[in-house]
């Protein structure tokens, strides 16, 4: 097929619709948010157009620094957990019978239909003292007494990993299915045990996919604000929780906007860094 570069403006036609959607639903709101972040806050929940750095200055405190640090740490931890569990899981899934694959994929897809609220309450019930899984452990004789597992960091991690896991599998699945199964067989004939073959062949051969998955889950987890509140203590609250709090309950739009802009910039910087590191290793 011959491909020519577009000659006239009309040839760009097919791009107008997505470009328009992107402008209306992404560029405009984001620009508005950046603008608002420089506005002056008025008592009583209003703000007036201005160009002040107060909102950013207020953010640069130890408290918000800690919250930002925790948010990034939590997002990274969830991304790593998802990928560490997801790669072997998806690898085994891609090597199993077609029927089993379909059942698992449908089950995983159905998790996507659950809202964050439902996931949060389901896990808080599962982790509760009165109706939680610890009762099962007591019944099995593994535990002496039922206890509450929430609120805790572990509960937040578990629920967030659960929520992001289907996305992880869906991104990894096509790459693992396409991976030539004779690669691991070749590794085995060369003296690698199945586990070693997995670690020295499958994982490195999928490095780019794994990096992309890490970034995706990281960004996804960064936006989570319900699960940390439902399952964590205040010290487990993320920046997204504080942004929601400021925007909705404190009616401080300019400050919320400033925090959101900051969060976007920091995460963009981290993603850029990860991509850069990935490219450096590839060039080597």
């Amino acid at each position, binding site marked *: 097929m011959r491909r020519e570069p577009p000659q006239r403006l009309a040839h760009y036609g097919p791009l107008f619709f997505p470009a328009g959607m992107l402008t209306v639903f992404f560029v405009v709101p984001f620009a508005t948010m950046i603008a608002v972040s420089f506005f002056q806050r008025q008592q009583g929940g209003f703000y007036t157009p201005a160009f002040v750095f107060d909102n950013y200055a207020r953010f640069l405190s130890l408290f918000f620094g800690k919250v930002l640090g925790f948010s990034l740490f939590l997002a990274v931890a969830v991304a790593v957990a998802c990928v560490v569990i997801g790669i072997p899981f998806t690898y085994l899934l891609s090597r199993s019978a077609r029927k089993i694959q379909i059942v698992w994929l449908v089950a995983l897809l159905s998790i996507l239909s659950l809202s964050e609220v439902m996931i949060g309450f389901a896990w808080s019930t599962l982790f509760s003292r009165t109706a939680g899984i610890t009762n099962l452990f007591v019944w099995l004789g593994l535990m002496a007494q039922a206890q509450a597992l929430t609120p805790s960091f572990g509960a937040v991690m578990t629920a967030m990993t659960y929520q992001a896991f289907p996305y992880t599998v869906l991104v990894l699945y096509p790459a693992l299915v396409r991976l*030539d199964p*004779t*690669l691991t*067989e*070749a*590794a*085995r*004939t*060369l*003296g*690698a*045990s*199945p586990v*070693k*073959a997995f670690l*020295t*062949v499958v994982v*490195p*051969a999928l*490095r780019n996919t794994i990096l992309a998955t890490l970034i995706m889950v990281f960004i996804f987890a960064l936006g989570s604000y319900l699960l940390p509140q439902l399952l964590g203590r205040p010290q487990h609250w993320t920046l997204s929780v504080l942004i929601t709090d400021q925007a909705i309950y404190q009616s401080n739009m300019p400050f919320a906007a400033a925090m959101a802009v900051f969060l976007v910039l920091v995460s963009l910087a981290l993603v850029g860094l990860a991509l850069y590191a990935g490219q450096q290793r590839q060039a080597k």
Partner: protein
Amino acid sequence: MSGLNLSHVTKQFGTFTAVNDVSLSVPDGTFVCLLGPSGCGKTTLMRMIAGLDLPTGGSIELAGADITKVPTHKRDLGMVFQSLALFPHLTVGENIAYSLRIRGVAKDVQKKRIDELLAMIHLPGFADRSVAKLSGGQRQRVAIARALAISPKLFLLDEPLSALDAKLREAMQVELRQLQQRLGITTIVVTHDQREAMTMADTVVVMNGGEIRQAAPPVDIYRRPADSFVADFIGQTNLLPVVPDGAGRASVLGEVVEGIALPTGAAKGTLSVRPEDVQLTAPGHGAISGTVTFVRDLGGAIETFVEAGGTQVIAVCSPRNRPDVSVGQSVGIRLDPATSVVLAR
């Protein structure tokens, strides 16, 4: 007992038998070609030798030890896959040294071995190249070098040359055979190209339907096929019915041929005659009579198709003794008992 020994090896997939009761003995240092039509179980047999599939019956012995259930990575073998399976994330050198790295061999020893192997496959200085940027023949050589890095006891290759063009394939066949002789390594190659098998092998194993039909040196396979399948599969042949005449003597296409007998204990048989062993003469005088139906001059050889007693017989001559025949002409066919084989089935 040394070498590789397969006894009654069987592999079933569900109710389907892919490899059926195969017994084979491969002495140390021999080059064996597994030859057969598509789907006859060659790959399955090789995968069982490699330990990638477990037999459902029988046992495999290597250098006196039963390895039937030993996992692949403990068998110390080298295998070249049809897809080559070079690791895309590693360089040529890293690919070759993979088995050494897995075994924890020191870096400088690895480096020496890489250089040795690259010299052996005529690709010196390629260690730091990416495998994606190699040509087909070069990838082939790298896969061979990778499999030989640890000097394995057994070298297995599954259709290693099928992706190469005809010219390169011929050159690689010779190279592979020379390499094997130099290293003296026991080698098994799967192929469905009989020319390839004849070029390389000490022993050709002809398989069909999951069974071994004949295992013998190439010349014997060609000159003394065990059955009509082998005769037909290896090279071109004429398969002619042998039936008893009124007096109980063996008759081929209506003529009793001196020196040819029915197979012992069988009411009828099949005679395999290579086209180059068929002589065309004047009709009569005890020759099988037939009619020329088609003549083609292939440059290096002339093929004459003769219809005799309802069967087509092909005769091949070199251009120097060009037969003086034309289509529609009656001719006589003479068979030499020394170069024909009577087969029971």
